[in-house]
């Protein structure tokens, strides 16, 4: 059962393509991870899906279909502002990278919950505040903190409050952009455990954007790996960890240690991410790829599906030899 269906989404900043024809599905109740380094287009992708992109970012093509269980599908890219306002928070909520800056510093936490609730439900102020207190309790914050200002909460509390806020209207989908990068690892662990628990209770889907592969492998059901604005591999978390197909994913996997698995030698990925203004005609990863062949420079690899795994690499293309021969 698909909840969100993204097809050929293109986002441009002027002439630069930050997201290039990305397609993927998020299932109902699924935690879908988007993995990429800085500049890979993962945050741009997230803001485009939620239609929160700001000029000069522009959706230049593609569709984002939202398929609620109880109604007709909605195409988000073509939505009017009014339609969007109704969908937001009620159906799709977001959690930003830094809770420090995503809560208004001069408003009480409760007010910021209440106005989200009251924008979508006709409830009294007191009732909305009650609901806010309940939500805070869900993430382990005492209910009396509902009257606090953000600066009176600790960093971890603020981040948990931001997650609680996203659940205020029981959304179907919560889009999270690196919600744990600003907190220490112990707090990160607590927050993620709490998130998994909440997700199991309420059954919402999560689109989780991060640069942290080890975190995603533990948290996500499926993972999409992005490189230079394109999806290079989409597979289950298990497969990404055990048997990555794309050389880039393999490089990422080999660059962090496993806690439980056998000891192996760690390796980084040589080189630097490409300049999006001057992308090569062929595979964007070709200059850094340890397994590159001649054809990689000229031919743009497309996602190829094999055993429920999609990867965009010429090495995985059975017809590679054929085309190789043909081009000579």
């Amino acid at each position, binding site marked *: 059962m698909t909840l969100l269906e993204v097809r050929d989404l293109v986002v441009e900043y002027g002439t630069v393509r930050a997201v290039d024809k990305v397609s993927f599905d998020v299932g109902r109740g699924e935690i879908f991870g988007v993995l990429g380094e800085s500049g890979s287009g993962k945050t741009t992708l997230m803001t485009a899906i939620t239609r929160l992109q700001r*000029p000069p970012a522009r959706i230049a093509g593609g569709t984002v279909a939202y398929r609620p269980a109880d109604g007709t599908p909605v195409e988000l890219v073509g939505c009017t502002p009014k339609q969007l306002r109704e969908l937001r928070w009620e159906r799709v909520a977001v959690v930003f990278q830094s809770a420090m800056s995503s809560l208004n510093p001069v408003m009480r936490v409760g007010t910021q919950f209440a106005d989200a609730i009251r924008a979508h439900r006709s409830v009294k102020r007191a009732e909305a505040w009650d609901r806010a207190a309940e939500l805070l309790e869900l993430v382990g914050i005492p209910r009396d903190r509902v009257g606090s200002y953000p600066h009176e909460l600790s960093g971890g509390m603020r981040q948990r409050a931001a997650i609680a806020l996203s659940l205020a209207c029981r959304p179907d989908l919560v889009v999270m952009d690196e919600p744990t990068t600003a907190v220490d690892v112990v707090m990160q662990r607590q927050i993620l455990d709490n998130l998994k628990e909440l997700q199991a209770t309420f059954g919402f889907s999560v689109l989780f954007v991060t640069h942290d592969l080890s975190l995603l492998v533990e948290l996500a059901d499926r993972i999409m790996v992005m490189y230079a604005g394109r999806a290079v591999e989409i597979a289950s978390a298990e497969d990404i960890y055990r048997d990555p197909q794309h050389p880039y994913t393999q490089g990422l996997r080999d660059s962090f240690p496993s806690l439980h698995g056998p000891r192996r030698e760690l390796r980084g990925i040589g080189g630097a991410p490409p300049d999006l203004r001057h992308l090569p005609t062929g595979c964007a990863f070709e200059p850094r790829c340890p397994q590159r062949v001649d054809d990689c420079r000229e031919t743009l690899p497309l996602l190829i599906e094999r055993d429920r795994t999609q990867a965009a690499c010429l090495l995985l293309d059975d017809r590679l030899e054929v085309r190789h021969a043909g081009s000579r």
Partner: protein
Amino acid sequence: MTRLLGTPFVQRIGFYLLAAWSAVTINFVLPRLMPGDPASAILFKMSELGPVSDQQEELVHRLFGGARGQSWWHEYVSYLNGILHLDFGRSISFYPATVSSVVKSGFLWTLLLVGSATVIAFVLGTSLGIVAGWRPGRAVDSVGSLVSIFLHSLPYFWVALILVYVFAFTLGWFPLSGGADIGVVPGFTPDFLNSAVRHAMLPAATIVLTSVSGWMIHMRNMMASVVNEDYVLLAQAKGLAGHRVVFSYAARNAVLPSISGFAVSIGMVVGGSLLTEMVFNYPGLGSLLNQAIVNVDYPLMQGLFLIISLTVLAANFVVDSLYVLIDPRTREAA
């Protein structure tokens, strides 16, 4: 009791009392530091205007020092006592009116004109700044910013002269000068209010026209940076109505620095808009100050300086206290 003494509010009151005392004391010391003998000069001028009683002579010495063999300390105590009773002696340029009555009437005129003009300019400029800064770079912003920089660079006395020439002298829509028609008795009567408002129109327009752009540019820049904050984006993501995002999340936060600026300019109001009041011959504090200087009217000057410094302090105190209410981050942990 000790806990109360430690609270920021009490500390703030203490600070402002200290500042007020300093202003009063400097006002006492300054004439005594002046070369020559201001008291004798004043007494000489007063004797030209009419007979000077012993009582008046004593008052002048109390305020400005001079030949009497009294100690400074003794003079200082009786000076403070006089101020508590609002006794600043008689004005020379408006002899025999007392300084306090002259200052009081000027104060009301200035409050009416410069006060309301400042409030209008602040509200108007800040609102325009919200509109321009919400979507920086759009037509409203580009045109608005250009016009406001143009207005900002106009000298305000020049604007005043142009307005007088066009609307009062050539077109005759508004009176040329003064605070109200001479025949009308001041008071809360429709006749007087009508006349006062008509007289205030042009000088107020001058002040608004030349100060509105400062507020606008300031607010526009704050707004343009606040709209990029994550909490504004999140407010949008929550599906809040557009006006709620603009006012409660963006403008609410962007206006905070402007409020401090507003406090300063409200304090400056009593200084009067010197040149504007002179061009329009408006009977406010600015004109009074000018006359006091031209006529070497030390008692009036002293009274004006005192009222100006005390009002600046009072305005700052009020806004300082309000600021704590609108920005919770400035509240110290109790």
